[in-house]
């Protein structure tokens, strides 16, 4: 009887060990990652929301000072900037105008404004490996400005640096279609406001 109980206990212990082992390994892995992050200054303690807000505020000011008024208002109101493409990146397009939607820390989406057809996603980042505060990620508005300057200044170089994917890989195509629709409505309303303002002034 005792022998049977001991054997059962051993089997149960062995089975429990098998079940618990992955859990214990995951815990050990997490503990090790936290320790490494603390050593590298990436711990929660090093995250300062006030600093991040101030950084974003500075980045917004810089963005505003560089882009066109319409683009700034677009970003302020819709959270994205549309930039017209200037190259013939795709032979199939045969000179059809295309544009990019720039989102902060999301892929750049190329599309045809005439039809709303999505062309590609260009996944691109600007990682600062010096990691001054433990992160290589620029503030949102700096990321947008970097994309804007690179597209305006050397579209081909930026696009060739990016990983190209079909639409829907990272950005929900329904969301993009909705953004295109919002952009169209925003432009019409803006035009109307300007028209009313100029007729009022006259």
């Amino acid at each position, binding site marked *: 009887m005792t022998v049977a109980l001991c054997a059962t206990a051993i089997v149960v212990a062995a089975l429990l060990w098998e079940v618990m082992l992955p859990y214990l390994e995951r815990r050990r892995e997490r503990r090790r990652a936290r320790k490494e992050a603390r050593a590298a200054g990436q711990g929660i303690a090093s995250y*300062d929301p006030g*600093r*991040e807000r*101030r*950084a*974003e*505020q*500075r*980045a917004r000011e*810089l963005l505003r*000072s*560089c*882009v*066109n008024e319409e683009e700034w208002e677009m970003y302020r109101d819709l959270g994205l900037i549309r930039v017209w493409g200037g190259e013939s990146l795709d032979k199939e397009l045969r000179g059809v105008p295309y544009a990019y939607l720039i989102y902060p820390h999301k*892929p750049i989406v190329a599309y045809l404004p005439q039809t709303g057809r999505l062309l590609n996603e260009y*996944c*691109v*980042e*600007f*990682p*600062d*490996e*010096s*990691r*001054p*505060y*433990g*992160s*290589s*990620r*620029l*503030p949102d508005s*700096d990321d947008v*400005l*970097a994309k*804007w*300057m*690179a597209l*305006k*200044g*050397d579209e081909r*170089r*930026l696009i060739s*640096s*990016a*990983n190209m994917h079909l639409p829907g890989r*990272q950005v929900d195509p329904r969301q993009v279609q909705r953004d295109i629709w919002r952009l169209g409505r925003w432009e019409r309303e803006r035009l109307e406001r300007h028209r009313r303002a100029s007729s009022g002034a006259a």
Partner: protein
Amino acid sequence: MKFLRMRPGYGEQLIAEGDIEVGEDEQMLVEEFRRQLEQGMWAAIPVETSSGRREAEMVRAFEDIPRAAERVIFFPRAAGGAR
């Protein structure tokens, strides 16, 4: 002329400033420009066209910077994102 660099957790940082017409300042700017490129930065200049549109130019050498440029903005080189 001002050299600004985008920084995570900070926004833009003034890294150098000088009068390009003064030899000493120009030399300092040249050295800083090279240092930034060696650190893997891209350099861009915000410009305004004759029609008033704001655009940007990428520059790869100090000699490419128009002497009238007020700002050069450095930002980390682009890399392909999530695969």
